[in-house]
């Protein structure tokens, strides 16, 4: 691979890495939201369902 090709590939890989990192962060967030939601569902059942 020539030097130019190496750098160009690096640039595209940086982009890909950033995108995947973002996906990971969103996945973590969704997990956290899900956890919070189940917690609140339990709380609601306790308070209202009896």
């Amino acid at each position, binding site marked *: 691979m020539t030097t130019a090709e190496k750098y160009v590939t690096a*640039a595209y890989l940086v982009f890909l890495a950033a*995108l995947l990192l973002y996906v990971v962060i*969103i996945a973590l967030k969704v997990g956290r*939201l899900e956890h919070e939601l189940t917690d609140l569902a339990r709380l609601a059942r306790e308070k209202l369902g009896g």
Partner: protein
Amino acid sequence: MSTSSLSEDGRTGKAGPAFDFGVASGRRGASTLALAAAGLLVGGIALALYWAPEDADQGFSQKIFYLHVPVALTAYASFAWAAWKAFRLLSTRDSRYDLESYTAVHMGVIFGLLTLVTGSIWAKISWGHWWSWGERQLVLFLIVFLFYSAYFMLRYSTEPGPRRERNSAVYALFGVALIPVSFLAVRIAGTILHPTVFTHEGANLPWEMFLAFCVCLAGMLSLAGSLYLAELAGKRADVALRDLRELLA
């Protein structure tokens, strides 16, 4: 704390415009956009790397242009979107624009960081240094990037509420005023203080390059749009869950 009355489709009490990208796009709109982003981006990069001719002067290293410039334009578009939402917040005093503006600024800063990194890599190939003050677009971008990074400092250090929403909105609006002013500033600075190196803007782009570029740009904008919707949904869910917790506790 901004009140968000929970209704079935997540709309707040106020009637919004028909094409309300932030709230009403729903699952179908968001997934169409994401699919479009995937198709356009993959297609665009394929066109750029396989089909478009190699630049006579710069050789293969010019191929970064298909990534760097769409990312930069997408960042600018995100900031413009944020300013539009900020303006809507100030004129309608509707709290929902606050999250939309904030998410758009976040998008802009993420794409902005990518712009600086890819620009730096391009500078390294072209001139051997990781940074070049002579590269006008990059310098302009740095100023704008610094400005919007400070946005987060402002947000994190202010208590949530209408005050923070309005301050953030005013600041986001100042940002778009700063962009043309800085452009002018960097331009005249080049004449006397920091000599401008010949930038990458070629005189006439061959139509194949232009087409590949356009597809990449469309892909990048769609990508930003999809990520924006995803992040906005997450933030809205956060707020709704917090309200719910307050109701139950």
